[in-house]
């Protein structure tokens, strides 16, 4: 990969000749390890709850929490309250000033992890949230006596006027629906790509996207990054972004197959990946850069969202070359091989799932390039 600068253009890659498919075992190995690690962690956490963790760290959107209503005599700035609450260890709390009742604030504290029903914070959780908020707010002065109002108690700086459990914002229904529509969207993609290319191309692209979503979710489980509604939105965005790369390469393969009729699909695929490499690196690089800016500078609130995007873009770029290409070539080769053997065997060979053809065992044919896997 040379970096050249000539008279009239900057050039990132020029005449690259990398045998990407030759490294498919390595790539697919990495993907399988990542997927297994993620799913394994999620299952392990789901079953054994190490340090009280769950399979996924679901945020206040999914689990609910407590709203504490506090009123101040001399209201501090929302920022000061936020700082006090955060330094008391409630980093995911949101603070909303009540505009039509000056001095009043709504402080929303996430689920405190006590035994509670699936969707609603228990009384113990509400009390724990109140105690934590009280500890944080005491840095502004003492709370009014329980029996006296804020005005009556001359020494008090604030009073907690109420605590209420709040349920999840995203209902289970929405959660299930997000999963269902993602699958529906993948099916839509599969059908369209099958219509424009071959159905093997569609399957390969969709498997690649699915892989990226799984790996991203797995990493969210491993690192216990909070999952909230914006993360779901990020995942839906990724599904669209990810498939783009695959289509760009497939498109080039379709074009090259017409230009180089003698060349094997294996070589055409490598060639096409190499030809579109500049575009892949530039586009993904640019999106990557802007997402890195979000991760580093976007603040706490945007972090789960931007991390989901970051992982998705990394794996989305990787999976086109590492997953979609090899699967498509392998599948096409299977079909071509099946078409050559007698019809009775064709079905079985063509549809049998599992490993790819072992090198050397299969007759050479015009589509696949044999003995590369060795």
């Amino acid at each position, binding site marked *: 990969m040379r970096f050249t600068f000539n008279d009239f253009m900057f050039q990132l890659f020029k005449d690259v000749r990398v045998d990407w498919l030759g490294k498919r075992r390595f790539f697919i190995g990495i993907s399988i390890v990542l997927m297994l690690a993620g799913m394994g962690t999620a299952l392990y956490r789901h079953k054994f709850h190490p340090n009280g963790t769950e399979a996924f760290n679901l945020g206040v959107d999914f689990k609910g929490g407590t709203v504490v209503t506090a009123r101040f005599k001399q209201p501090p700035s929302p920022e000061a309250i936020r700082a006090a609450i955060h330094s008391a260890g409630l980093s995911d709390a949101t603070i909303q000033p009540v505009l039509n009742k000056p001095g009043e604030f709504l402080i929303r504290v996430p689920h405190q992890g006590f035994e509670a029903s699936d969707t609603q914070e228990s009384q113990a959780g509400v009390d724990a949230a109140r105690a934590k908020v009280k500890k944080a707010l005491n840095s502004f002065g003492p709370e009014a006596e329980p029996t006296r109002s804020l005005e009556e108690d001359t020494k008090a700086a604030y009073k907690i006027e109420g605590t209420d459990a709040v349920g999840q914002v995203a209902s289970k229904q929405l959660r299930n629906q997000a999963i269902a529509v993602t699958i529906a969207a993948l099916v839509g993609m599969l059908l369209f790509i099958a219509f424009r290319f071959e159905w093997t191309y569609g399957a390969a692209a969709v498997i690649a996207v699915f892989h990226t979503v799984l790996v991203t979710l797995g990493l969210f489980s491993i690192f216990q990054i909070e999952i909230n509604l914006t993360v779901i939105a990020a995942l839906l965005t990724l599904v669209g972004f990810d498939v783009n790369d695959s289509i760009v390469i497939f498109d080039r393969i379709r074009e090259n197959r017409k230009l180089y009729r003698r060349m094997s699909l294996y070589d055409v695929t490598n060639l096409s990946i190499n030809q579109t490499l500049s575009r892949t690196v530039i*586009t993904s690089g640019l999106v990557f850069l802007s997402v890195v800016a979000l991760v580093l500078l976007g*603040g706490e609130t945007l972090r789960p969202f931007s991390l989901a995007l970051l992982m998705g873009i990394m794996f989305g770029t990787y999976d086109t070359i590492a997953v979609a290409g090899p699967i498509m070539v392998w599948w096409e080769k299977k079909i071509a091989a099946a078409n050559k053997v007698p019809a009775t065997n064709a079905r079985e060979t063509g549809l049998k799932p599992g490993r790819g053809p072992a090198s050397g065992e299969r007759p050479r044919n015009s589509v696949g390039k044999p003995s590369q896997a060795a």
Partner: protein
Amino acid sequence: MKKKNLLQRSIIIGIVTLAGLYIVIGPHGRRPHLKDLTLSGIKANLAQNIHLGLDLKGGSHLVMRVKVEEFFKKLTEESAIAAQIAAKEAGFDVKEAHAETSGENYRVVLQVADPSKSQEIRDAVEKKADLSDRVGWSFSSSGDTLIWSLTGTAQRTLAESATDQAMKIIDTRINAVGVTEPTLARHGGQNSHQILLQMPGIQDPERVKELLKGQSHLELVHVISPPSPAPHQTYSSEEEAIVSLNSGGRIPPNRRVMLYTERAELTGQDANANAPPPKKWVVIESPAIIDGAQLRSATANQSRAGADEYEIDFSLKQAGAQKFGEWTGANINEYMGVVLDDQVKSIAFIKGQIFDSGQITGRFSKQSADDLALTLRSGALPAPIEYQEERTVGPSLGADSIRSGVRASLLGLALVVFFMLIYYRGSGVNAVVALLLNMVLMMAGLIIFGATLTLPGIAGMILTIGMAVDSNVLIFERIREELRSGKTIPSAIDQGFARAFVTIIDTHVTTIVSSLFLYAFGAGPIRGFAVTLVLGLLVNLFSAVYVSRTIFMWLLSRKGRRVESISI
């Protein structure tokens, strides 16, 4: 030919750009004036046109309570009627049936003629009327009185499910009325039956509040009256109606007395229309023939062409239509009434068998007819709701978080612009122009769809920009390839666009297809997401392909056919 083509393209681009800019920074709903061109005028318009979400700007915070006691009361009343009918159908004589509510006790009381048969009656009733202890009714009896009371456990379960159902209906309504990015959650402890709704600043909060509260319980009922051609029987007071029942001043469980809000035009000339029509009461049969649960659709339509009066046309689901058809077929010339929230809205006699459609007439304004149709479609609330708390809240994100989020997004955008200019030099300018236009049009589209901008939304837009640049990268890389293979500049540009166009169409259509699936199978926020995605893609096709191409055409036409160099 080429020149003319270029001119035509430039005009189209000019118009779209101006329209987009006007939608984003122009005044809406009034005539523009010179002040709109000053910086403060632009800022003011921008603030008015773009709705900011709860996280950026705050909004209203409403706590409502589902009046579950009303739900129990109604359930008990309906069960009493059902119990009486069930006992009679099984051939037992019932002296009296009624529902009793006192405090937290809800009881169905049945007085039977023959106490020795109580066990048989109990069995018959529980089989037909859903009053068994499996669903939470505990049975007791003394003498000729059979009593079913709703247990505390059943009350809790039923209240929970009524609250959940109310929340679902409110969710549907709030989405249908176009409030985007609300927060809806259960509020308070297990027994508070409260719902918390936060919605970003909206045009008409009072209207939305009314609309959410609307119970919209629709029933089609049999009006007790001599059949047509005699006019339908009405009474001038509730007492008079009750007397007509000849049942000792009590309303038997299979009858109801209801206010009939007669249509104003029947009383005479339009001049009198503003005077309140005289109140009338009617007696109807209970239970209703069918209720709103059988509704398939409801739409608001003009009553007469040109009139400022609206009615609601509805149609019924298969099962309801069949029941309704059977009933109307058997009751030709009887009177039927449309009841909405326990008031008779209209009465008509049955000319012939009616199967699956009907109207709710009345002098509705367009707005109220639309709102009513919307709430009917979303389903009736299981119980009325009341507003308990109302606050106006500030943004949920601190000024510092908003600042860092916006700053990071702008930095991302700057990085993209910077890279495009360095890497593609002259053509990079082309891409940047397309990008800026893309942002303006995207904004304009979001304003048209009434979307609400949140901080993740802003970040998402930057991501869309990153993807939008992909089309330009594809085209430019292709042009470079064609140049390297020795083509002349005009033909490299032609070929580059033509080849890249196939790819761009494939990638865009794939995402559009998957968005259609999201739209078809998703609801609420997922649909909003799909709309935004498709909008971004269409805008991108216009800006990255059409506009870019035009800029190249313009460059070529300026330099003439024999261009020797191009900055790409």
